């Protein structure tokens, strides 16, 4: 008997009991359901929620694999900086990937295990079907945390994020805030020492701190915030051979993911483009302020304000946030005009928070969460504006 048949039998057996949603979820996740809708005419589309989610996961896979290599590469390069002279030969090695396997895979497994566990428990208590919303969140979470994040912290954050960020609002599709970013924000506010500084971004740097083998892995933004120069070239920054959260360093692969999402019409190109535009505008404003000598090199904001606007687009989590977080269809604006405003403000505020935040030189997740809250308001005014325009048109006609 095939697995499908087995699952189907189990599903029938538990039908009507409390455990039914759990078996249903496993069954429909792996296979097409046996029974299709009867009667009437139906428009059939291949992209149900599960397929949509799977497309986003596919777009994230390159970032994950790159992040696994990068985990090892940053570790070894921090010990022996000569590795950086020949990136391409030293990057795709099995040693690098092995560190990725032992450090990144547990993050993925814990994120999925805990998150889906919470989803299943809620589905069983509330008696609804298990929703697929966590499939993408579970993949996003390991990519946006520092590599050395302890697993128990991640578990607590995931439980918090799924319950407070999503389930209290009624589950997938009803949430105001992006759950993955809620998890990231919880980690940031709860355990700041594990989320910022120059030790957490490179594997093993925390354990080695204070010993003779100490290594440092300050992010580019962290160095700029302290008015220091960095050793990475623009090529490194674009391709992602830099320290940072697990999967957000490679702007190149993120853009490939973006192309894929736009091609499959899952991600909104309006949001992606306008986010980059907003960030570029804010970066240019800061560049002009520096060029006008309003901020001199003695200011603590000089380093980040001085950073060229196109560099701002490549470093930090901006590209990842713009492509994979801001475009979340549930929490973003729904109207086309609203999407432009929403994305632009995300980019604009990301760079502003990045420059002015004294505790942590990055603001993409805060900017996106803030705009998540404002997205319905933006939509409301866009719709009202349209209503008014149409009313005026009818008035003109009748007059």
């Amino acid at each position, binding site marked *: 008997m095939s697995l499908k048949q087995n699952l189907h039998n189990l599903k029938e057996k538990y039908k009507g009991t409390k455990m039914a949603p759990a078996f249903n979820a496993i069954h429909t996740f792996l296979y097409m359901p046996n029974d299709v809708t009867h009667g009437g005419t139906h428009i059939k589309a291949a992209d149900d929620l599960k397929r949509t989610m799977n497309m986003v996961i596919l777009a994230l896979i390159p970032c994950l694999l790159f992040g696994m290599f990068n985990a090892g590469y940053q570790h070894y390069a921090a010990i022996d900086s000569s590795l950086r002279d020949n990136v391409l030969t030293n990057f795709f090695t099995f040693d690098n990937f092995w560190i990725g396997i032992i450090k990144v895979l547990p993050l993925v497994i814990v994120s999925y295990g805990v998150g889906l566990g919470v989803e299943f428990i809620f589905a069983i208590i509330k008696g609804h079907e298990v929703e697929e919303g966590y499939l993408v969140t579970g993949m996003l979470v390991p990519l946006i945390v520092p590599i050395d994040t*302890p697993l*128990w*912290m991640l578990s*607590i954050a995931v439980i918090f994020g799924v319950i*407070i960020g999503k389930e*209290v609002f009624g589950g997938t599709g009803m949430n105001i805030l992006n759950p993955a970013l809620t998890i990231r924000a*919880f980690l940031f*506010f*709860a*355990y*700041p*020492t*594990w989320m910022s500084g120059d030790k957490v971004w490179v594997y093993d740097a925390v354990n080695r701190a204070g010993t003779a083998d100490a290594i440092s892995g300050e992010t580019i933004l962290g160095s700029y915030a302290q008015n220091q120069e960095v050793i990475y070239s623009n090529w490194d920054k674009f391709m992602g051979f830099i320290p940072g959260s697990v999967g957000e360093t490679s702007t190149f692969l993120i853009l490939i993911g973006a192309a894929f999402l736009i091609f499959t019409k899952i991600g909104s190109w309006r949001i992606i483009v306008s986010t980059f535009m907003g960030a570029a505008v804010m970066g240019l404003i800061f560049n002009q302020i520096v060029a006008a000598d309003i901020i001199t090199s003695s200011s603590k904001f000089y380093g980040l304000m001085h950073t060229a606007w196109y560099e701002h687009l490549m470093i930090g989590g901006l590209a990842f946030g713009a492509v994979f977080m801001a475009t979340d269809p549930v929490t973003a604006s729904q109207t086309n005009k609203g999407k432009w405003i929403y994305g632009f403000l995300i980019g604009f505020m990301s760079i502003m928070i990045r420059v002015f935040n004294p505790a942590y030189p990055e603001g993409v997740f805060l900017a996106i969460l803030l705009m998540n809250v404002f997205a319905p308001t933006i939509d409301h005014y866009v719709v009202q504006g349209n209503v008014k325009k149409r009313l005026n048109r009818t008035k003109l006609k009748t007059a």
Partner: protein
Amino acid sequence: MALLSKKDAGLLTDPLTDNNPITVQVLGICSALAITAELKASIVMALSVMAVLALGNVAISLLRNIIPSKIRIIVQLVVVAALVIIVDLILKAFSYELSKTLSVFVGLIITNCIIMGRFEAFALGNGPWKSFLDGIGNAAGYGLILVIVGFFRELLGSGTLLGFKVLGDPIEKTGLYAIGYENNGFMLLSPMALIVLGIIIWIQRSRNKVLIEEN
């Protein structure tokens, strides 16, 4: 004969559960968020509010027939302000450190909606003994939530309870800290107090049959 009639006992126990001033009436949230980072401060705040509310209720109840209704709010404010100043001075005299932690929030008991609410809703229409019980009951309901929130925030945020290091020493790495546990800094921030409060309301509303609303 019981010490209290059934109705009087209800005055004491209702505010603890079905008619809790914080979780059901959603009053007095401000101070519940501000001062609950430590359990000790929560307890002292609860006791201060209890003293002010019980004595204030009695005073308003005694004066209820001679207060002209047009100026009753002013009279209530005078009564509560006088009591708050007394509480503030007592705190300053006997536990100066704590009164510094509570800082302005003792003074702000004046603006605590629960107090004016009980004066208006209860003390103006009932006798002094009932008003006294009502004051104790409502302040206890308020204090109960404060203590619960304070308990979790101090335990998870600082790893202590009433200042005792119950989870071990974070610097010496003893107890739970030896296996890598860390304090949750978010718990010490006010937003987390709101979330803890929300969770308490959530649990209460889903368990208490009286409070479940029709959709």
